């Protein structure tokens, strides 16, 4: 049986979906987004059913590309997404508004189950629902109560699905999706019916709740931003404070594993591949699990408590004067996790020019893929100091990088506003949910999903690139390598270098003359003004596939250089990197320049593919690569000059 899950935004639809499917869910090809097709397995007895979470909408009539999915899936019985049954999640505390969508779905004639969620909030507001009266109004629907946040109602919903009432044929023919007049007439008629019956459906005691003082502070035109900035600073401080120990342990474990493997495996090229390519490659992925898990743990808590909706609200006020659509806030906020859902979430913007601007600036928001790069570089070049005894400088730098991306996203949007003119002005319709204590199962699922996607999806690409990189770094034109090694041996003899130093010099020369070394050396003149050496250049090239590949590439390059024999961690190796003239490679200026480069550069193949698909053209992704590339180069160059 195919079951569709529909409901207004903020009705706890996702919680119901998680409650019913647990971890047996997947999100198509792209990571955790609400605009995507989220499908899960719903087990009733011994049978598995397909549960699809449709995008949240206030009415079946669409106002955005996103909401068209609901209209198309439910209105066309020939559609492959047409369900055998529909679960409509209704917020018991906002019955009047929620019944519009429910009545529309009910009238379609599909077997319908109403799940009255958030009944505890309705009670808190002094509302009593008369389920028998609701049943009288919609006699062919099944109705159950649930409280997904408390994990209550799972069995009732399943039971409700088993006992769904068979339906008579559809009572209405939906208005065409572009016939606004007909939709308006129908919607008004429905609201009249709902309002006429509302007094029977629910009764209310006491007055409507006023906004508390604390609530007013959180959405205050000035203090709201100050509080949000403080919340972010605290989160980044915590991320740094808690993630360091497990990250050091993982780093050390992989270094030891690499050294141990090279001892127990027979000598040969495959052993080299394992110890210098595969193990450092996997290590480069696993090491960032603590930071990614922690960051999403805090973001999930903000979302669960209802604070993130307030942030969207205050950010809307900030963005409007800058010419962005209020609805751009959600895609931009989503891009902090990953630009892919961010770009796709821009479908909710009906005006294409505003949508385009949002898509073009969304990748400037610092995504989770940048965390490994920032973390590594901060560990190398930023001193481990505190301000006022409590504020970790490293955490503040991380916060600053996130802010830099956000500020430039807004600035670029303003510039694009003048280049791409828009006649229409969009609006933001946002419902502020009640403050709630976080539901830990949902937080856990979010963290698990983000870590799984990073390790599995990004990890496969990182590993494959590490293997290819190892081959390119281990082989090169044999004449050129043997000639260079000969010169290096003479140089070592002249300088009276020890055996260990001589071997180090030979390894460096071999790497420099490998295929990857030749490529890096060719690129070096272009990146030298930014303070980078050719090895950084190689990692810049490979991380065009995905930013996080940078770390794996660095790990592979330095592992090949010391033949995988060193017991040093990647951070130690990078800190000790010297140029031929004895100067340090990773100075504060070079490291900061590299961080700024990563803030701005469009280095994500998957995002480019999505932009191409969403804009149906190669033109916009190419423009995006171009403008972000120029911004990255100039930003990195200026940073290097200022800090040198």
């Amino acid at each position, binding site marked *: 049986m195919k079951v569709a899950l529909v409901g207004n935004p903020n009705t706890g639809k996702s919680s119901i979906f998680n409650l019913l499917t647990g971890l047996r869910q997947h*999100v*198509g090809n792209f990571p955790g987004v609400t605009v995507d097709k989220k499908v899960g397995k719903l087990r009733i007895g011994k049978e598995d059913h397909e549960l699809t979470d449709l995008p949240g909408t206030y009415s079946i009539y669409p106002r955005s590309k*996103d909401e*068209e999915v609901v209209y198309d899936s439910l209105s066309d019985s020939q559609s492959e997404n047409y369900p055998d049954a529909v679960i409509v999640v209704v917020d018991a505390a906002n019955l009047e508004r929620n019944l519009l969508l429910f009545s529309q779905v009910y009238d379609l004639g599909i077997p319908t189950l109403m799940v009255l969620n958030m009944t505890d909030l309705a009670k808190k507001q002094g509302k009593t629902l008369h389920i028998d009266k609701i049943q009288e109004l919609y006699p062919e629907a099944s109705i159950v109560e649930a409280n997904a946040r408390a994990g209550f109602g799972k069995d009732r919903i399943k039971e409700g699905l088993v006992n769904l009432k068979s339906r008579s044929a559809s009572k209405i023919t939906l208005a065409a999706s572009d016939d606004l007049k007909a939709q308006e007439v129908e919607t008004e008629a429905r609201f009249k019916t709902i309002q006429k019956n509302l007094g029977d459906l629910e009764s209310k005691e006491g007055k409507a709740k006023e906004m508390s003082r604390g609530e007013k502070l959180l959405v205050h035109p000035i203090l709201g931003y100050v509080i949000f900035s403080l919340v972010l600073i605290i989160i980044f401080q915590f991320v740094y404070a808690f993630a360091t120990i497990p990250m050091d342990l993982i780093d050390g474990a992989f270094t030891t594993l690499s050294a141990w493997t090279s001892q127990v495996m027979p000598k040969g090229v495959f*052993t080299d591949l394992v110890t210098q390519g595969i193990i450092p490659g996997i290590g480069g992925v696993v090491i960032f699990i603590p930071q990614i898990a922690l960051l999403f743990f805090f973001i999930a808590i903000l979302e669960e408590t209802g604070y993130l909706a307030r942030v969207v609200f205050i950010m809307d006020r900030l963005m409007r004067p800058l010419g962005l659509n209020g609805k751009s806030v959600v895609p931009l906020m989503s891009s902090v996790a990953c630009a892919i859902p961010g770009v796709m979430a821009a479908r909710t913007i009906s005006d294409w020019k505003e949508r385009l601007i949002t898509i073009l600036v969304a990748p400037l928001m610092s995504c989770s893929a940048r965390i490994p790069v920032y973390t590594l570089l901060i560990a190398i070049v930023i001193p481990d100091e505190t301000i006022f005894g409590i504020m970790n400088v490293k955490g503040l730098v991380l916060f600053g990088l996130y802010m830099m991306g956000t500020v430039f996203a807004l600035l670029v949007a303003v510039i694009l506003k003048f280049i791409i003119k828009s006649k229409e002005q969009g609006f933001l319709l946002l419902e502020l949910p009640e403050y709630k204590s976080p539901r830990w199962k949902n937080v856990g699922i979010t963290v698990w999903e983000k870590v799984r996607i990073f390790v599995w999806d990004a990890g496969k690409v990182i590993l494959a690139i590490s*293997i290819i990189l190892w081959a390119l770094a281990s082989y090169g034109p044999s004449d050129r390598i043997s000639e260079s090694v000969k010169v290096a041996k003479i140089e070592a003899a002249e300088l009276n270098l020890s055996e260990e130093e001589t071997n180090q010099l030979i390894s460096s020369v071999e790497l420099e003359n490998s295929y990857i070394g030749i490529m890096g050396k060719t690129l070096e003149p272009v990146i030298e003004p930014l303070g980078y050496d050719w090895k950084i250049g190689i990692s810049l090239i490979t991380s065009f596939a995905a930013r996080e590949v940078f770390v794996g590439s660095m790990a592979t390059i330095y592992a090949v250089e010391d033949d995988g024999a060193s017991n040093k961690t990647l951070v130690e190796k990078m800190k000790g990197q010297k140029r031929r003239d004895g100067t340090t490679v990773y100075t504060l200026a070079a490291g900061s320049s590299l961080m700024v480069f990563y803030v701005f550069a469009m280095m994500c193949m998957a995002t480019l593919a999505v932009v191409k698909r969403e804009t149906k053209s190669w033109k916009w992704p190419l423009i995006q690569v171009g403008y972000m590339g120029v911004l990255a180069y100039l930003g990195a160059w200026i940073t290097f000059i200022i800090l040198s």
Partner: protein
Amino acid sequence: MQTVLVILVLGVALFYIGREFYKRFFANEANCDGCAFNEKVE
């Protein structure tokens, strides 16, 4: 033996990267699970 293993692993890595690139930029997405909705909205 070690050389054969390296060639095999390298071949798999190259194939994977090539396939990912093709899938993301050029493949027909008709059968793509996550893209079913995208087809609709396009």
